[in-house]
C-alpha cells in the first residue's frame, strides 16, 4: 500500500494502469506506428494546404476578382475546399494534442519508475469527495458536481534517515456564475502536494496569500500572526481555529522556513499550505507540468528539458519538506 492523502492507495490497479501506459508508449514509438503517424500528418498537411489554396482561388473566382464571367462560378467549390482545409487543420491539432497528452503521461510514468513511485493518470471522484469533506479549506472549491483528482503520484522521499511518504496530483473543479442566458462555467486546475511528516502534529492552520480583504480584516480583528520577516507578513496570512494553533505557528515557522516560503512564492506565486494532523498539503495554481518541449511527431523520445522541469518542480517541494520536518522534530 502507498500512502495517499486521506486513505491509502492500493497498488495493483495502479500497476495495471502504469503497464498500460507503458504498452501504449511502446506502440506509439514502434517503427510501424512512427511511419503511419508521419504519413497521416502528411495527408493532413496536404489537405490543409490544398484546401486553403484552392479555397482562396475559388472564392476569388466567385467574387470575380479574376477577369472571368461570374455566372460560370458558384460558392460550392470554395466551401468544399475550405472544409478540406478544416479537416486538415483539425486532424493535425487532434493528432498533436493526442500525442502531447500521451507524452505527458509517459514522462510522469518514467519519473515514477525511476524513483519507485506509483503514477495514476485516472480521474478519481471518490477521493475528491473525501478530501472535500476532510480538508474543505483546500478541496471545497467549485459549485458544480464536476470535480475530481487525477494525474497522481504516490511514493516516498528520503530525508536524512527517514522516508517521508507523499502524494501529489491535479485537482479539477468548475465555478458556474450568472443565470439563464448569461450563465458561464469556468474551469480551474490546481496541483497539490501532500506529505506525512514523521512526527504527528497536533495542529490545524492554513497559510494563504494575503489579499486586500485580509489586510482590512486584520486591521479590525488583529487575528493574523506576525512573524520576524516583514516580507513574509506582507505576503502571507494565517487562518486558524483556536489559540492553541495560534501559539504553534511561531514555533513551526522558523526563520529558515519563512525564507523558504518566500523563495517558493517567487517561483510558484499564489499557493496555499495547510498544516494539519497527519499531513501537510500545498496547493498551487495550474498544472504540475506545463508546456512540454517533447514533440513525438518530430523526435521519437521524451525531451530532457521536460524531465528536468518535472524533477525541478518536485525538488523545490522536497527542500520545503526538509525544512518543515526539521521544525517538527
Amino acid at each position: 500500500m502507498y500512502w495517499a492523502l486521506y486513505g491509502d492507495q492500493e497498488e495493483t490497479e495502479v500497476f495495471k494502469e502504469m503497464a498500460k501506459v507503458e504498452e501504449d508508449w511502446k506502440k506509439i514509438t514502434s517503427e510501424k506506428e512512427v511511419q503511419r503517424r508521419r504519413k497521416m500528418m502528411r495527408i493532413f498537411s496536404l489537405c490543409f494546404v490544398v484546401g486553403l489554396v484552392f479555397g482562396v482561388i475559388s472564392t476569388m473566382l466567385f467574387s470575380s476578382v479574376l477577369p472571368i464571367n461570374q455566372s460560370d462560378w458558384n460558392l460550392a467549390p470554395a466551401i468544399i475546399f475550405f472544409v478540406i482545409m478544416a479537416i486538415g487543420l483539425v486532424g493535425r491539432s487532434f493528432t498533436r494534442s493526442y500525442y502531447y497528452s500521451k507524452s505527458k503521461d509517459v514522462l510522469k510514468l518514467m519519473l515514477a519508475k525511476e524513483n519507485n513511485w506509483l503514477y495514476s493518470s485516472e480521474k478519481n471522484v471518490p477521493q475528491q469527495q473525501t478530501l472535500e469533506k476532510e480538508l474543505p479549506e483546500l478541496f471545497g472549491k467549485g459549485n458544480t458536481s464536476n470535480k475530481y483528482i487525477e494525474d497522481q503520484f504516490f511514493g516516498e522521499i528520503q530525508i536524512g534517515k527517514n522516508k517521508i511518504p507523499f502524494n501529489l496530483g491535479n485537482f479539477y473543479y468548475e465555478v458556474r456564475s450568472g443565470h439563464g442566458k448569461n450563465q458561464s462555467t469556468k474551469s480551474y486546475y490546481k496541483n497539490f502536494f501532500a506529505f506525512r511528516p514523521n512526527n504527528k502534529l497536533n495542529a490545524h492552520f492554513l497559510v494563504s496569500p494575503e489579499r486586500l480583504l485580509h489586510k482590512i480584516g486584520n486591521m479590525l480583528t488583529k487575528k493574523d500572526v506576525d512573524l520576524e520577516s516583514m516580507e513574509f507578513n506582507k505576503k502571507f496570512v494565517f487562518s486558524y481555529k483556536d489559540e492553541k494553533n495560534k501559539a504553534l505557528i511561531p514555533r513551526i515557522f522558523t526563520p529558515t522556513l519563512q525564507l523558504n516560503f518566500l523563495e517558493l512564492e517567487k517561483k510558484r506565486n499564489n499557493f496555499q499550505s495547510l498544516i494539519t494532523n497527519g499531513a501537510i498539503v500545498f496547493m498551487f495554481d495550474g498544472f504540475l507540468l506545463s508546456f512540454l518541449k517533447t514533440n513525438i511527431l518530430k523526435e521519437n523520445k521524451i525531451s530532457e528539458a521536460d524531465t528536468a522541469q518535472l524533477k525541478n518542480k518536485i525538488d523545490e517541494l522536497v527542500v520545503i519538506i526538509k525544512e518543515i520536518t526539521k521544525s517538527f522534530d
Partner: protein
Amino acid sequence: MFLEFLLVIILIIIIVIAIMYNGLVRSRNAVKNAWAGIDVWLKRREDLIPNLVRTVKGYAKHEKQLLEEITRLRIAMINSQKDIKRTAAADDMLNKTLKSLFAVVENYPMLRANENFLELQKELSNTENEIAAARRIYNNNVRDYNTSVDSFPQNIISGIFGFENAEFFNATASERKQIKISIDDLS
C-alpha cells in the same frame, strides 16, 4: 465654504501623517521583532556550547586551545548582546571557530561515533542555519525600515518624530578585532 474646504484639507493631511507614522512604527517594530528572533537562536546556541565543550574535552584533550576559544567567544557573545555590531562580530567568529572544531573532530573516530556528540552537532548545525536565516530576515527588515525613514515624504515624518536608521547585523574587521582583544583579555 472656504473654512469647510480648509478643514477637509487639514483632515486629509492629518490622516496621511497618521498613516505614514503608523507605517514607520510598524517597520520599526518589525526590526525589533526580528532582532528578538535572532536573540532566541543565539541563546539556544549559547546553551548548547557548554555541553559540546564537555563532550569534546573527554575525547580530544589536545584541542584544549580551540575549546577554550569557543568558551571565551560564548562569554563575549553574552556580554555584547545589546550592541548589534559587536554581537555580529562575535557571531561571525564563533561560527568560524565551531566549523574549525567540527573539522578537527574528523581526526577523532571515537568522538565521531559518540551519539551525544552527533546529536549536538546536528542541533548546532540547525541552529547555525536558523541564525543565518534570522540575520537575513533582520537585515531585510532594517533595509525596508531605513528606506522608509529616508524616503520622501516619510523622511519629514521620521525627522519630526525622531525615527532613526537601524543598524544592520554585519560586522567589520575592526569590530572583529575588538572581540578578539576582549576574548584574549578573558584568557
